[in-house]
């Protein structure tokens, strides 16, 4: 009987070999995956009883962990909760993380590979591992100006502001309104957290949504910058080229005409391209759009970042879009930023920023530095071109000049800053008669050496319909943000 016994021995050996291989896979190879799953209570508990790193903006911490006396050793607190809510995000035991708390969780919680040496030292010294800190690109003055500017429009205002540094892509300010208090979600009193979560999600104004990157809106007349860029880049137009003006544009294949805001005549027919942008003439840009065709418009939009994701530091950036197969009247409407054109405030800030930076669009980023618990710098983000030559430098120069005219003599006069040349473009986008139009303003300054590019969107300020305009609501906020960055 010894032969079958030996066979069975080999069989048993196989069983044990399988078990050993499988536990090695489970506890070594796959362990990282299992540990990073969001419903893993052990990892969460450990993170909650560990000193999580701070989130810092311009030297002041906007999220930090403080000693607490309850079941977990540390309590996450947010010093300027409403103002930074959509940047820091929340850090909740029950509902997980969002914003920087989510995207930089590894470094904040101390489990990042770059902190490996620190962890070994902590283990040998028998002390709890500590998380590293994250320094944001945010300029606190700009952030304050943006938030206060939006809030000044009223308690129920919905809108967003994004400010970029054109030469680097640094996000200098990012605000979404209405905001929320992440402290309420980070609390260790779980019943209160659940109540807060329910009320935040039930709120029709959606305070948890970061309108700057997670929602698209019809960009309206601010999209005329893209159309103008396409026109100038086509070689068929210069700023002085005469284009169609007048009160109406006959839309092909339809019986309707495209008209101007408030029945204006755009100051004549024909007018120069510069004049057309100055008065934001729908007729002119509708006509240009028809002549260029939707392919040229889409190509130009994509060069600025439409239909792409580029923001890695915050989760959930949605793509801005230009309609896929518009017919002719739809193309004319798209050229003035209506129909199915949709853009995030960040996207429109990138358009302004690209023009300001001589045609090169920088990749936007929020995380400037990542630091170890001892504050030594582990990593500093190097600015990177997202798209060089979105427009040529000469086209960028022409566009800048045209945008200066808009602020100096045209629809954007409310953004003027004494002694500094400001380039800008207003927008007032109708989406449907049932809801108020969207007020937009995009700008940068100083026009000859741009330090900041801003996009402001006011979705709903709760004011009368005829009081809504890019120049009336949005431009003053942009002005304040630009002043804050330039130290005024």
């Amino acid at each position: 009987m010894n032969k079958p016994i030996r066979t069975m021995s080999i069989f048993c050996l196989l069983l044990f070999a399988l078990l050993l291989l499988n536990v090695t896979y489970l506890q070594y190879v796959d362990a990282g995956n299992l540990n990073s799953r969001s419903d893993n209570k052990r990892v969460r508990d450990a993170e909650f009883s560990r000193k999580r790193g701070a989130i810092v903006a311009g030297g002041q911490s906007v999220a930090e962990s403080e000693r607490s006396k309850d079941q977990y050793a540390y309590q996450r607190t947010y010093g300027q909760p409403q103002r930074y809510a959509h940047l820091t995000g929340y850090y909740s035991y029950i509902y997980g993380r969002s914003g920087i708390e989510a995207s930089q969780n590894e470094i904040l919680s101390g489990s990042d590979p770059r902190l490996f040496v620190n962890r070994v030292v902590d283990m040998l010294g028998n002390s709890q591992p500590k998380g590293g800190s994250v320094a944001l690109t945010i300029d606190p003055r700009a952030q304050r100006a943006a938030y206060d500017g939006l809030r000044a429009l009223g308690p129920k205002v919905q809108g967003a502001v994004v400010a970029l540094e054109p030469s680097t892509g640094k996000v200098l300010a990012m605000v979404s309104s209405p905001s929320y208090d992440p402290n309420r979600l980070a609390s260790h009193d779980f019943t209160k957290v659940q109540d807060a979560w329910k009320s935040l999600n039930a709120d029709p104004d959606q305070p948890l949504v970061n309108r700057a990157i997670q929602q698209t809106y019809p960009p309206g007349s601010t999209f005329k910058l893209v159309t103008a860029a396409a026109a100038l880049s086509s070689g068929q137009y210069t700023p002085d080229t005469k284009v169609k003006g007048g009160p109406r544009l006959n839309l092909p294949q339809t019986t309707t005409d495209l008209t101007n805001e408030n029945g204006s005549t755009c100051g004549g027919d024909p007018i120069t391209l510069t004049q057309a942008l100055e008065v934001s003439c729908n007729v002119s840009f509708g006509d240009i759009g028809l002549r260029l065709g939707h392919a040229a418009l889409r190509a130009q939009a994509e060069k600025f970042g439409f239909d792409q994701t580029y923001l890695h530091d915050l989760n959930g950036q949605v793509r801005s879009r230009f309609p896929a197969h518009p017919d002719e009247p739809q193309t004319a409407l798209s050229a003035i930023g209506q129909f199915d054109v949709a853009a995030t405030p960040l996207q429109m800030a990138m358009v302004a920023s690209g023009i300001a930076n001589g045609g090169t669009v920088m990749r936007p980023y929020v995380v400037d530095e990542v630091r170890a618990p001892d504050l030594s710098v582990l990593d500093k983000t190097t600015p990177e071109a997202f798209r060089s030559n979105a427009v040529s430098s000469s086209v960028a120069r022409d566009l800048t000049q045209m945008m200066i005219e808009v602020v100096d003599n045209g629809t954007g006069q409310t953004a003027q800053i004494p002694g500094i040349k400001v380039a800008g473009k207003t927008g007032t986008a109708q989406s449907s008669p049932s809801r108020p139009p969207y007020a937009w303003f995009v700008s940068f300054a100083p026009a000859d050496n741009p330090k900041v590019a801003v996009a402001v969107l006011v979705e709903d300020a709760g004011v009368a319909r005829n009081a809504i305009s890019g120049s009336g609501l949005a431009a003053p906020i942009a002005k304040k943000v630009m002043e804050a960055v330039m130290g005024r």
Partner: protein
Amino acid sequence: MSALSSRGEPTFAHRRRRGAELFLLLLSLVVGIGAYAAVGLGVQGRVPADIVGYGGWLAALCLLCHVVVRFTAPYADPVLLPVVAALNGLGLAVIHRIDLGYAASHVNIGPFARNQLVWMTLGVLLFVTVLVVLRDHRRLQSLTYTSGFAAIVLLLMPLLPVLGRTINGSRIWIGVGPFSFQPGEVAKVLLVVFFAGYFVLHRDALALAGRRVMGVDLPRGRDLGPVLAMWAVSLGILVFQRDLGSSLLFFGLFLVMLYVATERPGWLVVGGAMFVVGAYSAYLVIGHVQSRVDTWLHPFDPHNNSYQLVQGLYGMAWGGLVGRGLGQGDPTITPLGFSDFIMASVGEELGLTGVMAVLLLYGLIVERALRTSLVCKDAFGKLMALGLAFVVAFQVFVVIGGVTRLIPLTGLTTPFLSYGGSSLVANWVIIALLLRISDQARRPAPDLTSPVEDDATQVVNLR
């Protein structure tokens, strides 16, 4: 006349090695008592106050086993007892750790460690009884049919209306007052005895070859009776007691012993085919088998009832290579972390290192048992040792493979580690039987040289 020489085959003379066993036992005590102390340090920050009493009790049990083995089975394998002592000691410490965890979070379960120590004491006493009473394992052969009958009765007991109890969905328990017992655990030992005795008697008939298909001799159709019977019994356990693990264990045990007894791989082919048919139809028909398979394939699907499995996996991943350290993890999150899922608790607090050590200890038990089977001189002993080795190996594979998501989860106990009196007692008996067989197998052959004869008487012719 030429003197009769001994059989003359150059036999390898086994040594007793009782000193080695004692030394290894001391190491096992270091594991058991050390783990207990580490649990106290990890959870409460101090060595438990009762460490002397607890350690003394554990040491006394081990010493008792050793002395009994020294006197009643001097040639028995010296590795088995220390390995088992180490596993049992480690299991006690981990169960104690879970007790402390439940107490700390005010969960009203347990404590289990004290009960387990009582069961271990009972197991050791039974171990001693077996070694003292049963001086030769071959005497069990006369109990072949008695064992078979007893096993059937034990297996049927949980189905009785008053006695039987359903715990965690399986009707494999009997209860008298506050005590509950799994008769199946004892039945598996009796079944090994029954199969061994039965196959020794009938192996020649069962080994007759029937048709030859693809290089394998299939058994004759008229010999299929016993296989069909066993197949039906296993399916019955699955259907009526909803106990997938035991059903697999019994049928697998039967097949393997049949194969070894007859040396016919054909039986494995026939049995394997019957297994596949049975398993597949069980999967189609029985909802709880289906849900086990679904849970195994898609543990992270929220529709599957896989909380326990997933928490066990998380625990083991959280343990990583070296573990959180005894008392430093959260093994109480995993339901049944002291019994079915004790390997997840070991993995969490002792890491991959600890899990591998435990697996190697189990591997050693199986290896020593198979070795005993190889060197054993009688067919009955060979089959018994093999059967017992397979019971341990298969049980370890099924339960640890289930917890670590190698195979679908089936309810079987982790030998010597997990909480559960019936299983612990039965496993101590298995070890006693293995020691008894190995003592017989390793004992030097009695001297068969004929005694020196007197000078031959001469016939004197008186004429």
